[in-house]
């Protein structure tokens, strides 16, 4: 009997990678059909973003910047939606810029879904989409020195001077808060280096899980007020503002997939143990 178990473990330990792909595929697909609803606990980093946004008094000016594309939409879009919901419930004024060309499409989808359909706000008074400008960090530096030089018109072609909420908003210093929804370069790091640090305007960010590691030292040294890390970060923020969305439904699939990977690693190690012990015997 024992022999059979060892042989089974050995066969799992040296399995062809395509079986792993199949198991991972199922581990992600099945929970989408049969959700489990596991509990979600907010980590310190997500809590700090929530507090930073909650502290803003009503009608303060918030700059939200979209720096992600279609390939990173599943991770970052739920965050952007949650942040916009939180800002609009606290009746803040939202100004949207984009450092990525695709970011403008994402911003348009998010704003139509939340600002127009859900909150019924008026464009130009409660929120404005300034849109995409090429030049990577040059755009951030341009916003710090003079917005009107960079954005003579907003994304819909109306002149900036004719937009009521743009009155006496000339540079980043006039904003009370910055939130960068970023998936790479240009993104959070450029906002820290060229905007938050020099002007001192408080800033938070939401990034893909993999970019969190780049940004963590900035969060740890206080240059960035907390961080929403990947889809779990989005799910935690959705739980904090009490409106579960795409982030939450994805979490069950995450848990199962992680468990499967951990099991494969454990089996892989057991096989490794048995084989090295056998090799020593011969």
């Amino acid at each position: 009997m024992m022999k059979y178990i060892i042989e089974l473990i050995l066969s799992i330990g040296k399995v062809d990678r395509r079986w792993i792909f199949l198991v991972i595929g199922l581990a992600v697909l099945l929970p989408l059909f049969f959700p489990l609803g596991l509990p979600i606990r907010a980590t310190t980093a997500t809590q700090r973003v929530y507090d930073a946004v909650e502290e803003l008094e009503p009608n303060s000016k918030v700059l939200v910047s979209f720096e992600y594309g279609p390939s990173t939409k599943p991770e970052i879009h739920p965050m952007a939606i949650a942040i916009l919901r939180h800002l609009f419930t606290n009746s803040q004024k939202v100004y949207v810029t984009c450092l990525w060309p695709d970011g403008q499409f994402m911003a348009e989808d998010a704003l139509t879904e939340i600002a127009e359909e859900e909150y019924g706000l008026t464009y130009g008074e409660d929120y404005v989409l300034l849109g995409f400008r090429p030049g990577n960090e040059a755009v951030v530096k341009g916003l710090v020195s003079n917005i009107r030089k960079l954005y003579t018109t907003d994304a819909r072609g109306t002149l900036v001077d004719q937009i009521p909420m743009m009155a006496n908003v000339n540079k980043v210093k006039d904003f009370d808060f910055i939130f960068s929804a970023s998936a790479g370069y240009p993104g959070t790091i450029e906002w820290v280096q060229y905007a938050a640090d020099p002007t001192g305007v408080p800033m938070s960010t939401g990034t893909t899980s993999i970019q969190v590691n780049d940004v963590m030292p900035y969060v740890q040294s206080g240059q960035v007020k907390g961080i929403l890390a990947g889809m779990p970060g989005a799910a935690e923020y959705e739980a904090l503002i009490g409106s579960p969305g795409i982030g939450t439904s994805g979490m069950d699939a995450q848990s199962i997939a992680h468990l499967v990977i951990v099991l494969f690693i454990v089996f892989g190690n057991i096989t490794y143990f048995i084989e090295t012990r056998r090799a020593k015997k011969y």
Partner: protein
Amino acid sequence: MVAGGLALAFIVFWLAGHPGFREERIVMFLAITIMASTLIYFIRLANRGEKFHLRSIPGLKAVEEAVGRSTEMGKPVLYVPGIMDMDQVETVAGVIILGHVAKMTARYETSLNVPVSRSIVMKAGREIARESYTMEGRPDLFQDDMVHYLTDDQFAYAAGVNGIMVREKPAACLYMGKFYAESLILAETGNSIGAIQIAGTASQAQIPFFVTACDYTLIGEEFFAASAYLSQKPELLGGLKGQDMLKAFVTAAILLSLFLRVFSDLGWIGWNVIDFLTVQ
């Protein structure tokens, strides 16, 4: 001598009210000048024949082995200079390392395949590879299309390189430059075709993937030291010695600012180091 003169000139300029100089960035100016002069000092020292002992970096020794192995197996060497353009220092370093690898493939007469993601990198890569083949006396072996353009898009490039790997089955895959999320796609495909993989990058987020999926990885600063190791040129080795000195400076600066912070907290000195270090 020159440094003394320059320092004197700067002090005079500073005392004369330093017109048109942004004072708030004085820290950066001092940091740049001190560090640059250390580097120049050690480069000059090396030029005058000073020998420096350098520790061995396994990844770099493996480059020659990998090219040798591909020659035995009669398979091409695949070289990926990162997906960013020449406006990133890592890409420039990647192209320079391509020069050294091209010398090896010229010597061993191995076929070299360099798919690139940016056109300027294609031009620079061709210039440097042609130069290496000519210096090894084998200009006949070099064709322009060894360095060929695929696409500017990150994932289309990854898909294209995957295709090349699976169909041409190179024996050695070298990834030297700046990478983003596609690093693991390349490394896993390279592993599935059984190639020796050596990666070098300073893209912090991608180093863990290369460490797990590749045989050798040059981590951050080791990647920048590669061109010095491969060329063994005295001035580049001197530069490395200079870099070590900079690391000593930074360690000292960390400890110093730690104590200064303690003193200012306890009120012994009124001046806080933190705002000294914050550069607007």
